[in-house]
Protein backbone atom coordinates (compact mmCIF):
# COMPACT_ATOMS: atom_id res chain seq x y z
CA UNK A 1 0.00 0.00 0.00
CA UNK A 2 1.00 3.64 -0.30
CA UNK A 3 2.79 5.39 2.52
CA UNK A 4 0.66 6.54 5.38
CA UNK A 5 0.05 10.24 5.42
CA UNK A 6 0.83 12.42 8.43
CA UNK A 7 -2.76 12.41 9.57
CA UNK A 8 -2.85 8.65 9.70
CA UNK A 9 0.48 8.48 11.46
CA UNK A 10 -0.72 10.97 14.04
CA UNK A 11 -3.83 8.96 14.75
CA UNK A 12 -1.77 5.78 15.03
CA UNK A 13 0.57 7.53 17.44
CA UNK A 14 -2.42 8.38 19.58
CA UNK A 15 -3.31 4.72 19.66
CA UNK A 16 -6.20 4.72 17.23
CA UNK A 17 -6.94 1.62 15.21
CA UNK A 18 -6.79 2.33 11.48
CA UNK A 19 -7.20 -1.22 10.34
CA UNK A 20 -4.95 -4.09 9.40
CA UNK A 21 -3.41 -2.60 6.27
CA UNK A 22 -2.12 0.43 8.09
CA UNK A 23 -0.83 -1.69 10.95
CA UNK A 24 1.05 -3.98 8.59
CA UNK A 25 2.45 -1.15 6.51
CA UNK A 26 3.86 0.65 9.46
CA UNK A 27 5.74 -2.46 10.46
CA UNK A 28 7.14 -3.06 6.99
CA UNK A 29 7.91 0.50 5.94
CA UNK A 30 10.94 1.96 7.58
CA UNK A 31 10.14 5.60 6.77
CA UNK A 32 6.64 5.35 8.16
CA UNK A 33 7.85 3.43 11.20
CA UNK A 34 10.36 6.15 12.04
CA UNK A 35 7.83 8.92 11.66
CA UNK A 36 5.42 7.02 13.83
CA UNK A 37 8.05 6.39 16.48
CA UNK A 38 8.91 10.06 16.81
CA UNK A 39 5.25 10.99 17.11
CA UNK A 40 4.72 8.23 19.63
CA UNK A 41 7.55 9.58 21.77
CA UNK A 42 5.80 12.94 21.79
CA UNK A 43 2.52 11.34 22.83
CA UNK A 44 4.34 9.36 25.47
CA UNK A 45 5.85 12.47 27.02
CA UNK A 46 2.59 14.39 26.84
CA UNK A 47 0.77 11.60 28.62
CA UNK A 48 3.55 10.47 30.91
CA UNK A 49 2.60 9.91 34.50
CA UNK A 50 4.85 11.85 36.84
CA UNK A 51 3.26 10.36 39.94
CA UNK A 52 6.01 7.90 40.49
CA UNK A 53 8.85 10.32 39.87
CA UNK A 54 10.70 11.20 43.01
CA UNK A 55 12.11 14.66 43.36
CA UNK A 56 14.71 15.81 45.79
CA UNK A 57 14.61 19.18 47.42
CA UNK A 58 17.76 21.29 47.20
CA UNK A 59 19.47 22.15 50.49
CA UNK A 60 18.70 25.52 52.00
CA UNK A 61 22.21 26.80 51.29
CA UNK A 62 21.15 27.04 47.64
CA UNK A 63 18.51 29.63 48.34
CA UNK A 64 20.92 31.38 50.71
CA UNK A 65 23.43 31.68 47.87
CA UNK A 66 20.80 32.87 45.38
CA UNK A 67 19.44 35.32 47.89
CA UNK A 68 22.89 36.67 48.67
CA UNK A 69 24.08 36.84 45.06
CA UNK A 70 21.01 38.70 43.85
CA UNK A 71 20.83 40.86 46.96
CA UNK A 72 17.19 40.10 47.44
CA UNK A 73 15.16 41.71 50.17
CA UNK A 74 15.96 40.47 53.70
CA UNK A 75 12.29 39.57 54.08
CA UNK A 76 12.89 36.80 51.54
CA UNK A 77 15.90 35.36 53.33
CA UNK A 78 14.16 32.22 54.51
CA UNK A 79 14.35 29.23 52.19
CA UNK A 80 11.03 29.31 50.29
CA UNK A 81 10.83 25.55 50.60
CA UNK A 82 10.97 25.51 54.38
CA UNK A 83 8.80 28.60 54.50
CA UNK A 84 5.97 26.96 52.70
CA UNK A 85 6.24 23.75 54.60
CA UNK A 86 6.15 25.54 57.89
CA UNK A 87 3.15 27.61 56.99
CA UNK A 88 1.27 24.58 55.77
CA UNK A 89 1.74 21.94 58.38
CA UNK A 90 3.51 23.55 61.26
CA UNK A 91 6.51 21.34 60.70
CA UNK A 92 9.76 22.24 59.14
CA UNK A 93 11.41 20.14 56.50
CA UNK A 94 14.98 19.25 56.88
CA UNK A 95 16.87 22.19 55.55
CA UNK A 96 20.25 20.63 55.90
CA UNK A 97 22.19 20.02 52.78
CA UNK A 98 23.00 16.40 53.19
CA UNK A 99 19.54 14.98 53.00
CA UNK A 100 17.68 15.49 49.78
CA UNK A 101 14.39 14.01 50.80
CA UNK A 102 12.70 12.12 47.99
CA UNK A 103 9.61 14.03 47.06
CA UNK A 104 6.80 12.12 45.44
CA UNK A 105 4.84 14.37 43.15
CA UNK A 106 1.73 12.83 44.51
CA UNK A 107 1.08 10.25 47.19
CA UNK A 108 1.39 6.85 45.59
CA UNK A 109 -2.05 5.88 46.84
CA UNK A 110 -3.39 8.27 44.22
CA UNK A 111 -1.78 6.32 41.44
CA UNK A 112 -3.85 6.21 38.35
CA UNK A 113 -5.25 2.99 37.11
CA UNK A 114 -3.56 1.54 34.05
CA UNK A 115 -5.19 2.84 30.92
CA UNK A 116 -6.58 5.88 32.65
CA UNK A 117 -4.86 8.78 31.02
CA UNK A 118 -7.10 11.44 32.41
CA UNK A 119 -4.42 13.08 34.38
CA UNK A 120 -3.96 16.48 32.90
CA UNK A 121 -4.04 18.24 36.22
CA UNK A 122 -0.99 16.28 37.24
CA UNK A 123 0.96 18.64 35.09
CA UNK A 124 -0.39 21.31 37.31
CA UNK A 125 1.18 19.30 40.04
CA UNK A 126 4.51 19.22 38.39
CA UNK A 127 4.29 22.75 37.15
CA UNK A 128 2.55 24.57 39.88
CA UNK A 129 -0.43 23.59 41.96
CA UNK A 130 1.04 20.27 42.42
CA UNK A 131 4.06 21.90 43.86
CA UNK A 132 1.89 22.53 46.84
CA UNK A 133 1.70 18.79 47.04
CA UNK A 134 5.41 18.49 46.49
CA UNK A 135 6.05 20.53 49.55
CA UNK A 136 3.24 18.82 51.37
CA UNK A 137 4.69 15.40 50.78
CA UNK A 138 8.07 16.64 51.78
CA UNK A 139 6.69 18.07 54.98
CA UNK A 140 4.86 14.87 55.73
CA UNK A 141 8.12 13.01 55.44
CA UNK A 142 9.73 15.33 57.93
CA UNK A 143 6.86 14.97 60.40
CA UNK A 144 6.81 11.22 60.14
CA UNK A 145 10.34 10.95 61.38
CA UNK A 146 13.35 9.68 59.54
CA UNK A 147 13.03 10.42 55.88
CA UNK A 148 13.21 7.66 53.32
CA UNK A 149 16.74 7.11 52.11
CA UNK A 150 17.65 9.50 49.35
CA UNK A 151 17.87 8.13 45.85
CA UNK A 152 21.59 8.49 45.89
CA UNK A 153 23.79 8.09 48.88
CA UNK A 154 24.25 11.40 50.63
CA UNK A 155 27.80 12.53 50.78
CA UNK A 156 27.31 14.90 53.71
CA UNK A 157 28.79 17.94 52.04
CA UNK A 158 29.37 21.05 54.07
CA UNK A 159 26.43 23.37 53.57
CA UNK A 160 28.69 26.05 52.29
CA UNK A 161 30.94 24.10 50.04
CA UNK A 162 29.41 25.50 46.90
CA UNK A 163 29.22 29.07 48.09
CA UNK A 164 31.32 31.39 46.03
CA UNK A 165 34.42 32.57 47.84
CA UNK A 166 33.25 32.60 51.42
CA UNK A 167 35.51 34.29 53.94
CA UNK A 168 35.31 33.54 57.63
CA UNK A 169 34.11 36.52 59.68
CA UNK A 170 33.30 34.94 63.02
CA UNK A 171 32.79 31.61 64.70
CA UNK A 172 31.40 30.13 67.86
CA UNK A 173 31.14 26.72 69.46
CA UNK A 174 27.64 25.91 70.57
CA UNK A 175 27.30 24.35 74.02
CA UNK A 176 24.22 22.49 75.22
CA UNK A 177 22.03 24.15 77.82
CA UNK A 178 19.91 22.75 80.65
CA UNK A 179 18.71 19.23 79.88
CA UNK A 180 20.06 19.24 76.32
CA UNK A 181 23.06 17.34 75.09
CA UNK A 182 23.86 18.33 71.52
CA UNK A 183 26.81 20.59 70.87
CA UNK A 184 27.81 22.13 67.58
CA UNK A 185 29.26 25.16 65.92
CA UNK A 186 28.32 28.42 64.27
CA UNK A 187 30.23 30.20 61.53
CA UNK A 188 29.65 33.60 59.96
CA UNK A 189 30.90 33.93 56.42
CA UNK A 190 31.20 36.80 54.03
CA UNK A 191 30.07 35.91 50.52
CA UNK A 192 31.51 37.24 47.32
CA UNK A 193 28.88 39.96 47.06
CA UNK A 194 29.53 41.25 50.55
CA UNK A 195 26.51 39.68 52.22
CA UNK A 196 26.98 37.56 55.32
CA UNK A 197 25.57 34.23 56.27
CA UNK A 198 25.47 32.32 59.49
CA UNK A 199 25.96 28.59 59.15
CA UNK A 200 24.85 26.39 62.04
CA UNK A 201 25.66 22.77 62.66
CA UNK A 202 23.87 21.23 65.57
CA UNK A 203 22.61 17.64 65.70
CA UNK A 204 18.89 17.47 66.31
CA UNK A 205 17.41 15.85 69.36
CA UNK A 206 14.18 13.90 69.17
CA UNK A 207 11.91 16.39 70.89
CA UNK A 208 8.64 18.10 70.14
CA UNK A 209 8.56 21.41 68.34
CA UNK A 210 11.18 22.87 66.06
CA UNK A 211 14.46 24.68 66.46
CA UNK A 212 14.90 28.36 65.78
CA UNK A 213 18.15 30.26 65.30
CA UNK A 214 18.70 33.63 66.97
CA UNK A 215 21.45 36.14 67.48
CA UNK A 216 21.27 38.21 70.61
CA UNK A 217 22.96 40.88 72.69
CA UNK A 218 25.30 39.80 75.48
CA UNK A 219 22.59 40.14 78.10
CA UNK A 220 20.01 38.54 75.79
CA UNK A 221 17.76 41.56 76.12
CA UNK A 222 17.71 41.93 72.33
CA UNK A 223 17.13 38.93 70.08
CA UNK A 224 16.86 38.68 66.29
CA UNK A 225 15.34 35.54 64.80
CA UNK A 226 17.12 34.24 61.71
CA UNK A 227 14.98 31.24 60.90
CA UNK A 228 14.37 27.58 61.44
CA UNK A 229 17.09 24.98 61.78
CA UNK A 230 16.48 21.60 60.21
CA UNK A 231 17.96 18.32 61.28
CA UNK A 232 21.63 19.05 61.31
CA UNK A 233 22.80 22.09 59.43
CA UNK A 234 21.37 25.28 58.08
CA UNK A 235 22.54 28.59 56.70
CA UNK A 236 20.92 31.93 57.40
CA UNK A 237 21.42 35.30 55.82
CA UNK A 238 22.35 38.01 58.29
CA UNK A 239 20.47 41.28 57.70
CA UNK A 240 22.99 43.73 56.29
CA UNK A 241 22.33 46.30 59.03
CA UNK A 242 22.92 43.84 61.83
CA UNK A 243 26.05 44.63 63.84
CA UNK A 244 27.54 41.43 65.18
CA UNK A 245 29.39 43.26 67.92
CA UNK A 246 25.94 44.20 69.26
CA UNK A 247 24.62 40.66 68.75
CA UNK A 248 27.50 38.34 69.61
CA UNK A 249 25.36 35.52 71.05
CA UNK A 250 24.17 32.67 68.84
CA UNK A 251 21.22 30.97 70.44
CA UNK A 252 19.24 27.96 69.29
CA UNK A 253 15.82 27.62 70.87
CA UNK A 254 13.22 24.92 70.80
CA UNK A 255 9.86 26.35 69.85
CA UNK A 256 6.43 24.83 70.30
CA UNK A 257 3.93 25.05 67.48
CA UNK A 258 1.95 27.73 69.24
CA UNK A 259 2.17 30.48 66.65
CA UNK A 260 3.95 32.77 69.07
CA UNK A 261 6.87 34.41 67.25
CA UNK A 262 8.71 35.26 70.46
CA UNK A 263 11.56 33.19 71.88
CA UNK A 264 10.17 30.27 73.87
CA UNK A 265 12.74 30.83 76.61
CA UNK A 266 13.90 27.26 76.10
CA UNK A 267 17.38 27.41 74.63
CA UNK A 268 18.96 24.15 73.58
CA UNK A 269 22.44 25.47 72.77
CA UNK A 270 24.29 28.75 72.82
CA UNK A 271 27.66 30.21 71.93
CA UNK A 272 29.52 33.51 71.75
CA UNK A 273 30.85 34.63 68.39
CA UNK A 274 34.53 35.39 68.14
CA UNK A 275 35.19 37.83 65.32
CA UNK A 276 37.95 36.89 62.87
CA UNK A 277 39.93 38.85 60.39
Amino acid sequence: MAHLDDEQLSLLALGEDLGKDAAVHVIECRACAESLASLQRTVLVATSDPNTVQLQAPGSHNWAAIHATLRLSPSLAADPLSDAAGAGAGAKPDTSSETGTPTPLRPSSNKKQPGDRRGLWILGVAAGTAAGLVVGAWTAASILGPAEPPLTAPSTPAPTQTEPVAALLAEASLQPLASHTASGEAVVQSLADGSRQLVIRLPDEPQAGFREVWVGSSDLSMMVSLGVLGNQTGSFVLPSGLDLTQYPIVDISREPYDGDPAHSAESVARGVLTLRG
Partner: protein
Amino acid sequence: MEAAAHGWDVAVDRAFAAGEEQALAEAYRKLSPLVYTLALRSLGERAGADDATQEVFIRAWRSRTSYRPGAARLPAWLIGITRNVINDSLSARSRQYDVERAALRLATDPASDADAKDVEAVADRITLEDELERLGDPQRAIMRLAFYEDLTHDQISSRLQLPLGTVKSHIRRSLTRLRARLEVEHGTP
Protein backbone atom coordinates in the same frame (compact mmCIF):
# COMPACT_ATOMS: atom_id res chain seq x y z
CA MET B 1 -10.06 19.36 34.70
CA GLU B 2 -9.75 22.32 32.41
CA ALA B 3 -9.24 24.56 35.38
CA ALA B 4 -6.73 22.20 36.89
CA ALA B 5 -4.63 22.38 33.77
CA HIS B 6 -4.06 25.99 34.60
CA GLY B 7 -2.56 25.16 37.95
CA TRP B 8 0.35 27.47 37.52
CA ASP B 9 -0.70 30.95 38.55
CA VAL B 10 -0.03 33.26 35.62
CA ALA B 11 0.05 36.14 38.08
CA VAL B 12 3.43 34.78 39.15
CA ASP B 13 4.62 35.01 35.54
CA ARG B 14 3.63 38.65 35.34
CA ALA B 15 5.04 39.49 38.76
CA PHE B 16 8.33 37.86 37.80
CA ALA B 17 8.54 39.84 34.57
CA ALA B 18 7.74 42.98 36.54
CA GLY B 19 10.74 42.31 38.78
CA GLU B 20 8.91 41.37 41.97
CA GLU B 21 11.32 39.37 44.08
CA GLN B 22 8.51 37.48 45.74
CA ALA B 23 7.78 35.86 42.37
CA LEU B 24 11.31 34.50 42.21
CA ALA B 25 10.88 33.00 45.67
CA GLU B 26 7.58 31.50 44.58
CA ALA B 27 9.14 30.04 41.44
CA TYR B 28 11.92 28.60 43.57
CA ARG B 29 9.43 27.11 45.99
CA LYS B 30 7.52 25.37 43.25
CA LEU B 31 10.23 24.41 40.83
CA SER B 32 13.55 24.10 42.61
CA PRO B 33 13.01 20.39 43.48
CA LEU B 34 12.52 19.62 39.79
CA VAL B 35 15.44 21.81 38.73
CA TYR B 36 17.68 20.30 41.37
CA THR B 37 16.68 16.72 40.59
CA LEU B 38 17.19 17.25 36.86
CA ALA B 39 20.64 18.62 37.56
CA LEU B 40 21.45 15.85 40.00
CA ARG B 41 20.46 13.14 37.51
CA SER B 42 22.41 14.77 34.70
CA LEU B 43 25.53 15.76 36.59
CA GLY B 44 25.65 12.87 39.01
CA GLU B 45 26.81 14.71 42.09
CA ARG B 46 25.37 17.07 44.64
CA ALA B 47 27.91 19.85 44.50
CA GLY B 48 27.32 20.19 40.76
CA ALA B 49 23.56 20.04 41.21
CA ASP B 50 23.80 22.75 43.88
CA ASP B 51 25.80 24.98 41.57
CA ALA B 52 23.41 24.38 38.68
CA THR B 53 20.32 25.08 40.79
CA GLN B 54 21.76 28.35 42.01
CA GLU B 55 22.84 29.29 38.50
CA VAL B 56 19.39 28.61 37.03
CA PHE B 57 17.59 30.97 39.38
CA ILE B 58 20.32 33.58 39.34
CA ARG B 59 20.42 33.53 35.55
CA ALA B 60 16.63 33.61 35.35
CA TRP B 61 16.41 36.63 37.61
CA ARG B 62 19.14 38.52 35.81
CA SER B 63 17.53 37.92 32.45
CA ARG B 64 13.96 38.53 33.62
CA THR B 65 13.60 41.50 31.30
CA SER B 66 13.89 39.12 28.37
CA TYR B 67 11.12 36.93 29.75
CA ARG B 68 7.76 37.41 28.01
CA PRO B 69 4.82 36.10 30.03
CA GLY B 70 2.74 35.92 26.88
CA ALA B 71 5.24 33.70 25.10
CA ALA B 72 5.84 31.05 27.74
CA ARG B 73 4.85 30.08 31.21
CA LEU B 74 7.54 30.59 33.78
CA PRO B 75 7.94 26.84 34.52
CA ALA B 76 8.66 26.08 30.87
CA TRP B 77 11.04 29.02 30.63
CA LEU B 78 12.90 27.89 33.73
CA ILE B 79 13.14 24.33 32.42
CA GLY B 80 14.71 25.76 29.28
CA ILE B 81 17.27 27.65 31.36
CA THR B 82 17.90 24.50 33.38
CA ARG B 83 18.75 22.60 30.22
CA ASN B 84 21.14 25.33 29.15
CA VAL B 85 22.86 25.43 32.51
CA ILE B 86 23.20 21.66 32.61
CA ASN B 87 24.59 21.61 29.07
CA ASP B 88 27.07 24.35 29.94
CA SER B 89 28.15 22.41 32.96
CA LEU B 90 28.52 19.17 31.00
CA SER B 91 30.59 20.79 28.29
CA ALA B 92 32.81 22.48 30.84
CA ARG B 93 33.28 19.08 32.33
CA SER B 94 34.03 17.28 29.14
CA ARG B 95 36.78 19.78 28.63
CA GLN B 96 38.16 18.49 31.87
CA TYR B 97 37.75 14.87 30.83
CA ASP B 98 35.53 14.56 33.79
CA VAL B 99 32.64 13.05 31.97
CA GLU B 100 33.81 9.50 32.34
CA ARG B 101 33.97 9.95 36.05
CA ALA B 102 30.40 11.21 36.14
CA ALA B 103 29.33 8.30 33.98
CA LEU B 104 31.11 5.95 36.32
CA ARG B 105 29.32 7.38 39.31
CA LEU B 106 25.99 7.01 37.61
CA ALA B 107 26.79 3.53 36.44
CA THR B 108 27.17 2.38 40.01
CA ASP B 109 23.54 3.21 40.61
CA PRO B 110 21.39 1.08 38.32
CA ALA B 111 18.28 3.02 39.28
CA SER B 112 19.61 6.39 38.30
CA ASP B 113 19.37 5.90 34.56
CA ALA B 114 15.67 5.14 34.69
CA ASP B 115 15.20 7.91 37.22
CA ALA B 116 16.93 10.37 34.95
CA LYS B 117 14.56 9.49 32.12
CA ASP B 118 11.56 9.84 34.41
CA VAL B 119 12.62 13.24 35.61
CA GLU B 120 13.33 14.27 32.03
CA ALA B 121 9.82 13.19 31.12
CA VAL B 122 8.35 15.41 33.83
CA ALA B 123 10.39 18.34 32.57
CA ASP B 124 9.40 17.59 28.98
CA ARG B 125 5.80 17.37 29.95
CA ILE B 126 5.95 20.85 31.42
CA THR B 127 7.43 22.02 28.14
CA LEU B 128 4.66 20.34 26.17
CA GLU B 129 2.01 21.71 28.47
CA ASP B 130 3.32 25.14 27.70
CA GLU B 131 3.16 24.44 23.96
CA LEU B 132 -0.36 23.06 24.33
CA GLU B 133 -1.38 26.32 25.97
CA ARG B 134 -0.04 28.17 23.00
CA LEU B 135 -1.95 26.10 20.47
CA GLY B 136 -5.14 27.94 21.30
CA ASP B 137 -8.57 26.49 20.78
CA PRO B 138 -9.94 24.37 19.31
CA GLN B 139 -6.54 22.68 18.89
CA ARG B 140 -5.85 22.72 22.59
CA ALA B 141 -9.22 21.22 23.45
CA ILE B 142 -8.82 18.58 20.76
CA MET B 143 -5.38 17.50 21.96
CA ARG B 144 -6.49 17.38 25.58
CA LEU B 145 -9.34 15.07 24.71
CA ALA B 146 -7.01 12.90 22.65
CA PHE B 147 -4.25 12.80 25.26
CA TYR B 148 -6.02 12.77 28.54
CA GLU B 149 -9.45 11.36 27.86
CA ASP B 150 -8.29 8.89 25.29
CA LEU B 151 -11.01 9.83 22.84
CA THR B 152 -10.74 8.86 19.19
CA HIS B 153 -10.97 11.53 16.52
CA ASP B 154 -14.55 10.37 15.87
CA GLN B 155 -15.51 10.93 19.45
CA ILE B 156 -13.73 14.27 19.58
CA SER B 157 -15.54 15.34 16.45
CA SER B 158 -18.95 14.68 17.97
CA ARG B 159 -17.97 15.99 21.41
CA LEU B 160 -16.79 19.31 20.04
CA GLN B 161 -19.17 19.32 17.08
CA LEU B 162 -16.38 19.88 14.62
CA PRO B 163 -16.08 18.25 11.19
CA LEU B 164 -14.07 15.03 11.17
CA GLY B 165 -11.56 16.39 8.67
CA THR B 166 -10.97 19.46 10.79
CA VAL B 167 -10.27 17.38 13.86
CA LYS B 168 -7.85 15.12 12.01
CA SER B 169 -6.01 18.02 10.49
CA HIS B 170 -5.71 19.77 13.85
CA ILE B 171 -4.39 16.60 15.44
CA ARG B 172 -1.76 16.22 12.75
CA ARG B 173 -0.57 19.80 12.92
CA SER B 174 -0.64 19.99 16.70
CA LEU B 175 1.23 16.76 17.21
CA THR B 176 3.87 17.82 14.70
CA ARG B 177 4.24 21.10 16.50
CA LEU B 178 4.59 19.44 19.88
CA ARG B 179 7.22 17.12 18.46
CA ALA B 180 9.11 20.07 17.03
CA ARG B 181 9.05 21.83 20.38
CA LEU B 182 10.62 18.82 22.06
CA GLU B 183 13.28 18.65 19.37
CA VAL B 184 14.12 22.30 19.83
CA GLU B 185 14.21 21.81 23.58
CA HIS B 186 16.73 19.02 23.22
CA GLY B 187 18.72 20.67 20.50
CA THR B 188 18.09 18.03 17.85
CA PRO B 189 17.21 19.11 14.32
